[in-house]
């Protein structure tokens, strides 16, 4: 059985990496929310990306 592991980064001690959650990685648990966001992003004007190099 897979068990939770300690986070690899000490920076985030409140986050534990749990391989058991990998099954959710490619699942959309709330498709309505994604649809809502995609509808907004289709027409909304995003601000300039200040982190683009």
């Amino acid at each position, binding site marked *: 059985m897979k068990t*939770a592991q300690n986070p690899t*980064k000490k*920076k*985030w001690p*409140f*986050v*534990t*990496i*749990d*391989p058991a*959650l*990998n099954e*959710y*990685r490619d699942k*959309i*648990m*709330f498709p*309505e*929310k*994604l649809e*809502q*966001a*995609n509808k*907004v*992003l*289709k*027409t*909304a*004007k*995003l*601000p300039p*990306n*200040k*982190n*683009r190099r």
Partner: protein
Amino acid sequence: MHVDKYQLKSEEELTRFEFISEGLNGAIRKLIEFQRTTDPETYNLAFGDKHPATEGIDDLAVSDNGDTEKVLATVVAAVYAFFDRYPTAYVYAQGSTKARTRLYRMGINRFYADVRRDFHLYGRIGENFADFEPDTEYEGFLAQRKLS
């Protein structure tokens, strides 16, 4: 951010998080999902209760578990962890209802000092995103990590 928060579990790519809210109505599993959108640079933040039976999450649920501030602090913590992995991404968030969107704004305002130090933050009105102002009502929010 020195506010009490719940311990988070995440899958290895830091796009799905889970935690357990413990309060007046018992233990409630919460799921935070950073969803890829049609915009390659933007992820959508979805958050809600996880139903044991259906495995679905419900953004409309009102847990009333007496721990709103701790829950909001935990979501904000997940956002920080996500951006640590995806520093150039945008994260968009919008509640399923106006009331839920106001709750998001309340959460941002609660942690505004930290948030504005660490993020470029925008509020959406219609099709336009403008710099976030704490007293303005928005239809959605967009954040990007400030990189040094």
